[in-house]
């Protein structure tokens, strides 16, 4: 039985329905990342778990207990806020002790011991007397984590925990955060709009968009086997090529057929889209059978690999990952399926006019 269970949660603000029957479950000790663009409902979901919002319908269960109507103070969850929300009038030690005192702990020596343990856990031993304003952003983030963990909560909630940090600091803090969570072994839900963060921290990742849950799975599931067209475009780089579904393949505009794995049910002969990642494409010499002709429009050098944007003759653009010297802008090339990447996925043609390619940086 899952430890934390979101059961068909529904929430609207005035006429805006921000969550639609959201159901996700988290096993004890697992980390679930809620990933989605802004407005996807991920923050609302987290606030409902924390108890700051009440769902219009649905239930929230922890260890089998229905806590949907519990006020935040009774849930015994720890939360790290986006801007940390450290109490500026209290010292680091007093901040960490706040939750212990709230929960009725009065033994000063015991509180002191637990505070120093919590600070040691986040690698800030001896910081009790510091003022919140005089420590760095990365240290504030860790104090916020220590404060959330000190009362030994049942669930840890993280709201965009790294968004407030410098890019240089982010990767290190992410590693430390993951290590601290794993040491405690606490069931965790985190919200992020950064795919890298979700993949790195989450045991499982739930992708939300417009209040709808698109897919829950391991990072590998999401990247290699996206369940919906949205996930395919949102997670990682991908290009979409329109065509017709025929014989398990997609017949593209130029008449060539490319293979792929159907991600949803498709009728023979129905309009379809083939979603291809840059590393699943390769350059072929012009005129090769089954390759699409085009012209290199742009070259993006990214160190070990280089991405080439190719304007196909059909008017579409695709991205191809190749060696840095594989082509130059202006070169006439041909693009063919291949390379070491995941198999292209076939979706029903999107009716909502989802752009042909979408980069998420």
């Amino acid at each position, binding site marked *: 039985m899952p430890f934390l269970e979101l059961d068909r949660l529904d929430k609207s603000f005035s006429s805006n329905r921000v969550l639609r029957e959201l159901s996700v479950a988290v096993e004890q000790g697992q980390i679930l990342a809620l990933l989605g663009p802004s407005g996807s409902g991920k923050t609302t979901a987290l606030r409902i778990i924390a108890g700051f919002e009440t769902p219009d319908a649905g239930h929230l269960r922890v260890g089998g207990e229905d806590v949907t109507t519990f006020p935040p*103070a009774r849930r015994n969850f720890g939360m790290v806020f986006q801007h940390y929300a450290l109490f500026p009038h209290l010292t680091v030690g007093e901040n960490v002790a706040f939750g212990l005192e709230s929960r009725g702990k009065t033994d000063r020596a015991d509180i002191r011991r637990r505070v120093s343990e919590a600070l040691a856990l986040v690698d800030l031993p001896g910081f009790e007397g510091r003022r919140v304003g005089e420590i760095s952003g990365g240290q504030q983030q860790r104090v916020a984590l220590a404060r959330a963990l000190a009362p030994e909560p049942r669930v840890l909630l993280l709201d965009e925990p790294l968004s407030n940090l410098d890019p240089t600091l982010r990767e290190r803090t992410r590693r430390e955060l993951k290590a601290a969570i794993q040491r405690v072994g606490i069931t965790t839900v985190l919200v992020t709009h950064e795919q890298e963060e979700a993949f790195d921290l989450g045991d499982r990742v739930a992708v939300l968009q417009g209040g709808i849950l698109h897919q829950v799975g391991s990072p590998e599931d999401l990247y290699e086997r996206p369940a919906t067209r949205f996930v395919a475009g949102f997670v990682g780089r991908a290009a979409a090529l329109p065509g017709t579904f025929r014989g398990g393949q997609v017949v593209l505009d130029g008449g060539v057929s490319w293979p792929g794995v159907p991600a949803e049910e498709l009728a023979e002969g129905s309009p379809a889209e083939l979603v291809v990642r840059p590393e699943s494409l390769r350059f072929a010499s012009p005129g090769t059978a089954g390759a699409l002709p085009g012209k290199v429009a742009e070259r993006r050098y990214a160190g070990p690999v280089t991405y080439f944007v190719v304007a196909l003759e059909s008017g579409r653009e695709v991205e191809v990952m190749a060696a840095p010297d594989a082509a130059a802008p202006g070169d006439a090339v041909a693009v063919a399926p291949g390379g070491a990447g995941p198999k292209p996925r076939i979706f029903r043609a999107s009716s909502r006019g989802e752009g042909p390619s979408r980069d998420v940086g």
Partner: protein
Amino acid sequence: MSSRERLLVPALLAVLLAWLVGYPLLITLMEALGGPRAWTTGHFAAFAGRPDEWLALWRSLWISAASVVLSALVGVPLAFLFERTEFPGRRFLGAVAALPVALPPLVGVIAFLFLYGESGFISRAVQAGLGLDGPPWRLVGPGAILLVHTYSMYVYFYLFTRAALARQDAALLEAAASLGAGRVRTFFRVTLPLLRPALAGASLLTFMTSLASFSAPYLFGGTFRVMTTQIMASRLNGELALAQVETVMLAGLALLALWAMRRADRAASTGTGVRGIAPTRRRLRSPAARWTAGALGYLLAALLLLPHAVLALVSLVPAFTWTAEPFPPVLDFGNYRALFTDAERLRPVLNSLWMALASTAAALVLGFAAARAALARKGSLGGALEGLLGLPWAIPGTVFAVALATTFSVQQPAVGRFVLIGTPLILPLAYLVRSLPLTGRAALAGLRGLDPALDEAASSLGAGRLRRLTRVTLPLLRPALAAGAGLAFITALGDFVVSIVLYTFDTRPISIEILSSLRLQDLGMAAVYGVLLMVASTVAFLLWGQGDVR
């Protein structure tokens, strides 16, 4: 909190505030119309038929407008001098230049009387110096009123402009310069337009303060009556109905002025939302310029501190020992001794202290509770609470005094009217009403600036409502609340305009005692009370009043 409770508390607060703030004004309007027994527009017709009433209205208006212009002419250049140039003594003099606003109006007025009045120090010195038979001038009429207004109100322009200049982004001036604008063009096309919100704010504050001003017209006006003194005169003549009409007219004028200036201001809101780095101060390079600026600064400081100094000096003059001499012949601490040995002299101080403390405490609790309820409940109830909290700021003190006197002079508990006139309750109640905007706005600003995540963090850490209030919200709001309460306290402590309408002999406050000491020609004792108020107000102002102006 249950949802019923969540509606009940704000609703009860709104009813209480409406009874305190809105109801007396409504009763006054009703009675001015003869209601509820004999509805008539006759009183208004009588008002309209009397030229002296229109004259008083007109004088209130032009005195206020002239106060705005004169205050701007003094305050804005001073702000540039202290914010944009660097010279020896700048920091100290810059702080001194803000002090006049800290003097309670009545205290400023008597200090001017001691300085420039017919038997004031300056007048006597001029008279003796020129060998004149009589005093060189008389401190009376519109000129005298405007002098006092400018002295105390230029500070609004000074502080607002300085704050705005300090916030201005040096990059904007550099951008103008790189686009080929000279100093003059930059000033008129960039600096000045960016100051517009600050100037509009200072103008509004000065205009409303002048319109409500009572001490200066009362003591210096003579036969030159503005609306506030006209109301007092009508009440003194026993023309209560006319006084009510005048009160309604003055309240209407104040609200109209507020509305018009807010409307004009709305078009002017500017700002890129970017808080840049203020330009560095221009160090005056030539020694001559630096010394001139310094000397001018100290001369100005002396001029500004002269009222404070003269109050201290006169407070040392024993009663009836100073007659024709240019300088008082006897100086001792007898007046101060008398204050602490004579129970009747100490009485007004104790009265003012307890009434100011009680009203401030009540205003703090009520203002904080109403501000919290207003922010928690958006929509019409929240808006009503905010409006009621701010209303006493817009309405002149004289109006509220008359309104409270009208409302609480009859015993009709069924409609919320009680006889409070003549009881020790009426003055603290009046002070409370006048304090609400100060504490309420401080609480509103403090609560708005509070990150809601802090409260959520506390509740997710298991803190209940009481613990969140006492351990998180109140400690974080303490500076804002202390500032609001401090200003409310000194305003109540030195209040004259409301007190003169509502005091009883047993609850006479300091200001009324100053007035009676003056009437008895006991200048020394009047000055002692003035010094007390001056010290208390200056301390409060230095602690809480300056905001982030340095």
